[in-house]
């Protein structure tokens, strides 16, 4: 009995991965074949980019501030509080900026994509779209994926900047350290590979969060309860996969650009 259940679950998992891979591939390939719905890109870019700006700024400032607080406490034991700026900027740019932004935006947008598309599925709006001769993959999925990739890139830059600024505020006003020194350290020790690493990651994370949100939305079944289920699955899967993939991308990028 238990073996049967394990077998069934394993098969379902493999099937889901297979379906998702095919879905994500089709959505990606659609960008290179007409028709391309440019107005949809702009609408989605506004929803994902501008709509997520406030939470990304808030998360960035808070994280940078916390990093400065925690690092100053530890570094002071070694008399190395001067490198707080370097610590905060490197951590934000290489790791926390992209990952936090990815997780925050997936919480906001993967869920909204799954619930919006899921509602359209259960009310037959997706079928109606197909019946009217419009491909929902091109019209709904591809614009969301590419808007998420583009917007996550810029949101990550905003999160990095806000994180460093937040760290600076804490350093100056709470830790009572030298502000110019903090910013000088934050800037001087940055290398191009660090920036590259921080800007490559959001491209993957944007693709992951939007494709997963759309995937679960488009395969919704079981009425309104199904929409709720799809939303939860989308957020959980997107967040977990972002963190999981981050490990591999970091390892790959570190092997390509080893630390000096």
């Amino acid at each position, binding site marked *: 009995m238990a073996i049967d259940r394990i077998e069934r679950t394993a098969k379902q998992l493999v099937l889901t991965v297979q379906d998702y891979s095919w879905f994500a591939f089709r959505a990606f390939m659609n960008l290179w074949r007409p028709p391309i719905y440019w107005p949809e890109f702009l609408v989605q870019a506004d929803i994902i980019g501008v709509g997520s700006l406030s939470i990304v700024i808030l998360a960035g400032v808070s994280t940078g501030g916390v990093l400065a607080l925690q690092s100053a406490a530890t570094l002071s034991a070694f008399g190395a509080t001067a490198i707080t700026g370097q610590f905060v900027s490197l951590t934000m740019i290489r790791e926390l900026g992209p990952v936090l932004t990815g997780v925050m935006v997936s919480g906001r947008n993967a869920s909204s994509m799954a619930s919006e598309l899921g509602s*359209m599925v259960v*009310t*037959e709006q997706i079928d109606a779209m197909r*019946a009217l001769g419009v491909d929902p993959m091109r019209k709904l999925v591809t614009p969301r994926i590419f808007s998420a990739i583009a917007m996550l890139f810029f949101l990550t830059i905003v999160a990095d900047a806000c994180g460093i600024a937040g760290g600076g505020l804490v350093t100056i006003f709470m830790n009572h350290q030298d502000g110019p020194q903090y910013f000088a350290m934050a800037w001087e020790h940055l290398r191009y590979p660090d920036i590259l690493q921080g800007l490559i990651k959001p491209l993957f994370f944007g693709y992951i969060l939007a494709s997963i949100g759309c995937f679960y939305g488009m395969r919704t079944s079981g009425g309104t309860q199904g929409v709720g289920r799809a939303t939860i699955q989308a957020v959980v899967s997107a967040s977990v996969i972002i963190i999981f993939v981050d490990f591999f991308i970091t390892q790959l990028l570190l092997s390509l650009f080893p630390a000096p």
Partner: protein
Amino acid sequence: MTETSAFVPADPAPATDASPVVVFDHVCIGFGETPVLEDVSFTVAPGETRILLGPAGVGKSVLLKLVNGLLRPDEGSILLFGEEISHMPEQRLFPLRKRTGMVFQEGALFDSLSVRDNVAYQLIQELVPDEEIDSRVHEALHFVELDETFSLFPSSLSGGMRRRVAIARAFIQQPELLLYDSPTGGLDPVTSTTIIELIVKERDISRTPSLLVTHRLQDAFTLCTHRFDATENRMVPLPEGETDANTTFLMLEEGRLIFDGSLRELLASQNTFVREFLE
């Protein structure tokens, strides 16, 4: 379309010589282990209105979705406008679907778009100029007698109005085939009659071949025993004993087609299930 001046005779000879618009040939489909349709074969000829009867859950909506390729059969072949669509790639199906109009069970209007944008959905995708879109939407809404809803959103419409907007959306491109999925399901008798009157009006004015799914016998019989009188702009009954010769019936029982014929043949059928359904 109150301007319609031409009266269309209600009982013309069926157009049987031209090739059928839809052909189902031994079609089977199932979901998982459960078979839904088994060995279903029928045709829809040009100018013909076919009413698919059957209780809830026998696969009527599934059959309708097979017609325009929204679902694919497991076995058998389906011809739409003479083209085999059973294994046709989705991209090649879109041009064929644009030639059909479909009215979904609950209307399936896009709730984030206004009535104007819903009705004009296809025209907007084809980048038709705004002035032309507005005029055609007004015309389509006038046909379903909902001129005042042009700028409204679906959420502010009643169930019957939504259904009529969905009909306007299906009619606007003057399709070569119309598919109605329980267009009166869940509506009160008065609203149902309004919807049926619109379908009769479309049938008698345009003679578009259509396939209508319903479990309501009263609607099916009204369609068969009434015609649209363009001069009075309303649906009127045909003379006693007369029926629309181009409106015929199909009946499904547990995924199998058990009846294919005219109203008279349906009423005379000795099949136990048909008799039970009629009673």
